[in-house]
């Protein structure tokens, strides 16, 4: 699944990226990262020393998510890296606790989704009231 998002070598990618996407992820396609919702929020939780030794792409992600929440999709947009690549990098950074991933409200949140995957009525009511007040 994740290779659909360009973690594989691709001639077109050379025009867009300084490095081929698969090189950025170390050639890996993480199984866990494929399930990371694109709207999941990321929050950096690192000390500045953590930046040492990180790839420029990971540094950029941590910097973008410092002091503000950024969704996986936003990180992809701001880094100009494909969604699949950002999913792998974010998953890597979360594994070493350099960032936190928040999935509240997404399909991975059992408190807002029922057993069939539908959103809870109370959350929908809050969303409805919120949109109506815009």
């Amino acid at each position, binding site marked *: 699944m994740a290779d659909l*998002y*360009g973690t594989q070598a691709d001639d077109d990618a050379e025009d867009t990226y300084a490095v081929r996407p698969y090189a950025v992820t170390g050639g890996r396609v993480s199984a866990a990262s494929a399930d990371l*919702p694109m709207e999941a929020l990321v929050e950096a939780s690192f*000390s500045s020393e953590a930046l040492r030794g990180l790839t420029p792409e990971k540094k950029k992600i941590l910097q973008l998510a410092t002091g503000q929440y950024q969704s996986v*999709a936003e990180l992809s947009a*701001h880094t100009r890296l494909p969604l699949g690549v950002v999913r792998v990098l974010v998953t890597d950074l979360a594994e070493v606790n350099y960032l936190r991933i*928040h999935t509240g409200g997404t399909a991975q949140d059992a408190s807002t989704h029922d057993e069939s995957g539908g*959103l809870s009525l109370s959350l929908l009511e809050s969303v*409805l009231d919120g949109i109506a007040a815009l």
Partner: protein
Amino acid sequence: MASQPSDAPVATATPPVHVAPTVVKIVIAGGFAVGKTTFIGSISDIDPLNTEAAMTEHSVGVDDAGGVTDRKTTTTVAMDFGRIALPGSLWLYLFGTPGQDRFLFMWDDLVRGAIGAVVLVDTERLDQCFPAVDYFEGRGIPFVVGVNCFDGVAKHQLEDVREALGLGPETPLMYTDAREKSATKQALIAVVQLAMKRIKDR
């Protein structure tokens, strides 16, 4: 944020003082150049952003923008999206689907966990929204259909559109104007209401 111990395991770390927003999403679908990005931009807190999915062989040699070059000359293998902060620490993301049928394989990822979808329709090119309607119907995802009135002119009766699209009476159908925040708002409200009705009717 800096005070959080960075070496503590995520699952057992002291809860942050602030709580991350709850994120929900609505998918904005429809044919090529039908106004999805305009729709998102009319209500988003941020200028619509663009996330790329690097296409490989899926995108080679099948481009078909037939007859619409007067409105939009290029398309990307990308999704435009926007974000709206709602009261109660809720963030609503609006994700536009990639504009052409050949990217349907990406939609499963897009719709996972979504409240539902708005299908935008241009009555001049009605057939372009068939894949979206089929997709959401087939998966039981709540969706509403918005007939985008380019230049503010409604050229077709809603009931004619309903018949042409083969929509059942349960699918909300409305005129919309992708440029107008108030119209966008009404379409989004209709999706959420439909999702709520589905739950209540169960």
